[in-house]
């Protein structure tokens, strides 16, 4: 069965090509139908592949020759490991649901088929990325998903913000990608191959060098460069700024690309290259710290945002930070576990938010309210997602997040643990702030409230499925099924276990649960049934500077703009000036000079024959004199 894994990405590709041929005229039903069927099929295939992988362990790589470089030969193909078997399962499932959901959400958009083209292309690229057997192929599809993200963020290209956001997302991630590319190239020269196995073997041995850097430094350098790619893609601090802006895209896109799958690719990359990172403690520490900072920073920013999607986006950033930290402190399995659960409940939250936006046609939290009565199903599913995110037992988030917290503490990173705990508190607060603002209380804008209504089944069905997953997904790696995921992942790794795992630690569990409940309680106190003394405005005033700081996203966008964009444009302007007024001007001056000399010569032809003969005579004279001097004078 595993040998057929190539079907998994190819089915969406087929759908893409089909829609591309049909073009913009394709009827909505066909476009959506084909896409959903294809990705459902690829989900089923991946399920089969998953079972096969579970039983027989990693298979592949299946390769074909791609390019010859001198003596070296670069091959492409696919491989199935336990990790990417899990990934394709998650990705294809979420994709199927989102594709279905979009049929309702994008209904009536003039470029509906194009939207589905892009989505299919993305699904293909994402699955191919996951199945790549070597770094170069991974990089190729890494860029492809970036492209799809660019196209989908800018899907409503006529909105200037959308155009800007698309550009920003591509360029910011490109910064990380460049690092990744360099890392891959260095790894190639160091190990002589792009294949994971070869590279990691060399990395593990550590006996490698590039002449100008060797051994441990080289390992760390490569690991950090690879991580830079992950930072860009997974919106980690300091390259997280693109993700919230990317919310300009249609909400299903946010759900699929910017919550469940693409942004998780960074985490996947680090997980896939784990041997490399393990070989370099420095790199691991960096990963951990970046993760923690991101988690806390994003959570703090999310506290005060007014745009529902931005809140969820920042929560995504923050959760990705959790995963990075998990990998950083060595809790490989927990990182992957959280990646999976997060994929479900974050997609769920986005889709639910989408159906809210669909209903009230605004994204501003303070224009909503009381929607529970209008959208009960949405409200319930959102609640499930919120609880999962906040980490309330027994929802998915609880298990994974709790594992990570425990790992952070037990591996001796109390500081990181503290940061995460604080982040967890904020998480619970901001997500329930959203819940209460949207679904409870009195409608703030009655006319919007009036028109609100649930979407059709294509939109609600995915919500229900995802809600179910968000509820139960946690048990895959809970004591209740004996940490099944860990065993699945580690079943065939050489040392039988990658990184750190630990049995559940009940006091810690209770503590994190308590923190979550506190956050929820606080949110309820402020936004659900606020007493006079605790209205949000008062809080905002009370925390004045901090409030603004968080609301302004710590002014990071402004700083970057000043630091990068202005300097870049400045340099560009200078270069252009030099080009026009130094180099080209110089050329023009020389040209003019020559021409004016020739004009002078032209007018030296006065028509006076005696002038001519004088010149000639002088010529003779000079010639004779010079010749005589050269010949040594007349005796």
């Amino acid at each position, binding site marked *: 069965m595993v040998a057929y894994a190539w079907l998994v990405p190819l089915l969406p590709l087929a759908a893409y090509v089909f829609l591309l041929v049909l073009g913009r005229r394709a009827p909505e039903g066909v476009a959506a139908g084909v896409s959903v069927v294809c990705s459902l099929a690829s989900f089923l295939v991946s399920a089969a592949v998953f079972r096969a992988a579970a039983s027989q362990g990693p298979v592949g790589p299946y390769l074909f020759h791609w390019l010859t470089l001198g003596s070296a030969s670069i091959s492409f193909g696919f491989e199935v490991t336990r990790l990417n078997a899990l990934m394709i399962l998650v990705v294809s499932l979420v994709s199927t649901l989102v594709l279905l959901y979009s049929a309702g959400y994008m209904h009536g958009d003039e470029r509906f088929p194009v939207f589905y083209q892009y989505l299919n292309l993305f699904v293909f690229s994402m699955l191919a990325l996951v199945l790549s057997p070597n770094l170069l192929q991974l990089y190729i599809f890494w860029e492809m998903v970036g492209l799809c993200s660019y196209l989908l963020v800018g899907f409503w290209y006529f909105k200037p913000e959308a155009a800007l956001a698309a550009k920003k997302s591509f360029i910011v991630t490109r910064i990380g990608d460049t690092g990744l590319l360099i890392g891959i190239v260095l790894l190639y020269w160091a190990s002589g191959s792009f294949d994971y196995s070869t590279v990691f073997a060399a990395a593990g041995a550590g006996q490698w060098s590039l002449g100008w850097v060797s051994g441990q430094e080289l390992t760390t350098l490569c690991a950090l460069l690879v991580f830079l790619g992950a930072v860009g893609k997974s919106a980690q601090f300091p390259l997280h700024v693109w993700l919230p802006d990317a919310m300009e895209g249609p909400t299903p896109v946010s759900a699929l690309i910017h919550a469940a799958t693409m942004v998780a690719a960074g985490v996947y990359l680090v997980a896939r290259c784990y041997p490399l990172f393990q070989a370099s403690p420095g790199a691991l520490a960096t990963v951990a710290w970046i993760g923690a900072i991101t988690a806390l920073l994003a959570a703090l920013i999310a506290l005060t945002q007014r745009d529902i999607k931005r809140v969820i986006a920042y929560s995504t950033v923050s959760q990705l930070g959790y995963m990075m930290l998990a990998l950083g402190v060595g809790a490989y399995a927990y990182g992957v576990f959280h990646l999976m659960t997060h994929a479900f409940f974050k997609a769920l939250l986005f889709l639910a938010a989408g159906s809210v936006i669909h209903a009230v046609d605004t994204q501003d939290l303070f224009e909503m309210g009381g929607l529970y009565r209008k959208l009960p199903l949405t409200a319930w599913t959102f609640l499930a997602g919120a609880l999962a995110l906040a980490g309330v037992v027994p929802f998915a988030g609880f298990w994974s997040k709790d594992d990570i917290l425990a790992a952070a503490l037990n591996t001796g990173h109390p500081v990181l643990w503290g940061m995460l705990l604080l982040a967890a508190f904020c998480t619970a607060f901001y997500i329930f702030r959203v819940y209460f603002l949207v679904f409870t209380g009195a409608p703030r804008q009655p006319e919007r409230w009036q028109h609100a209504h649930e979407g059709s089944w294509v939109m609600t069905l995915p919500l229900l499925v995802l809600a179910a997953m968000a509820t139960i997904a946690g048990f895959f790696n809970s004591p209740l099924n004996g940490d099944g995921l860990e065993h699945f992942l580690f079943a065939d790794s050489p040392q039988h276990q990658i990184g750190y795992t630990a049995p559940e630690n009940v006091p810690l569990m209770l503590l994190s649960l308590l923190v979550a409940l506190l956050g929820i309680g606080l949110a309820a106190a402020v936004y659900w049934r606020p007493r006079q003394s605790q209205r949000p405005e008062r809080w905002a005033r009370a925390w004045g500077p901090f409030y603004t700081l968080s609301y302004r996203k710590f002014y990071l966008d402004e700083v970057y703009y000043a630091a990068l964009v202005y300097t870049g444009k400045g340099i560009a302007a200078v270069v252009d000036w030099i080009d026009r007024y130094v180099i080209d001007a110089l050329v023009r001056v020389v040209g003019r000079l020559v021409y004016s000399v020739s004009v002078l010569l*032209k*007018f030296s*032809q*006065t*028509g*006076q*024959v*005696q002038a001519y*003969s*004088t010149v000639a*005579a002088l010529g003779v004279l000079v010639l004779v004199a010079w010749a005589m001097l050269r010949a040594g004078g007349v005796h």
Partner: protein
Amino acid sequence: MAYFPIPTGSLLALGAILFCIGLYGALTKRNLIIVLVSVELMLNAANINLVVFSRLGLNPGLNGQVFALFTITVAAAEIAVGLALLLAVFRLRKTSDVNDLNENKN
């Protein structure tokens, strides 16, 4: 029969001076006829050289004088042509001043 030998150098100097005078005239005189005459002077300077060399040269011979004769003849032809052209110009321009011949220029 005895004669007073004149050193070759001074004769050559004479030629050179004559040449320069001719050149000067050719470059400065306004009247076309004078200019032509000056050119003749230059040619004659060469003739003087030839003759001198044919008599007092390193290995004397008649060639020089023959050459001089040819030159004189050619010079005569040259003058003839020159005068013809002068007439043509005079007929069309009513002037024999070299400086007025400045229609073709730049």
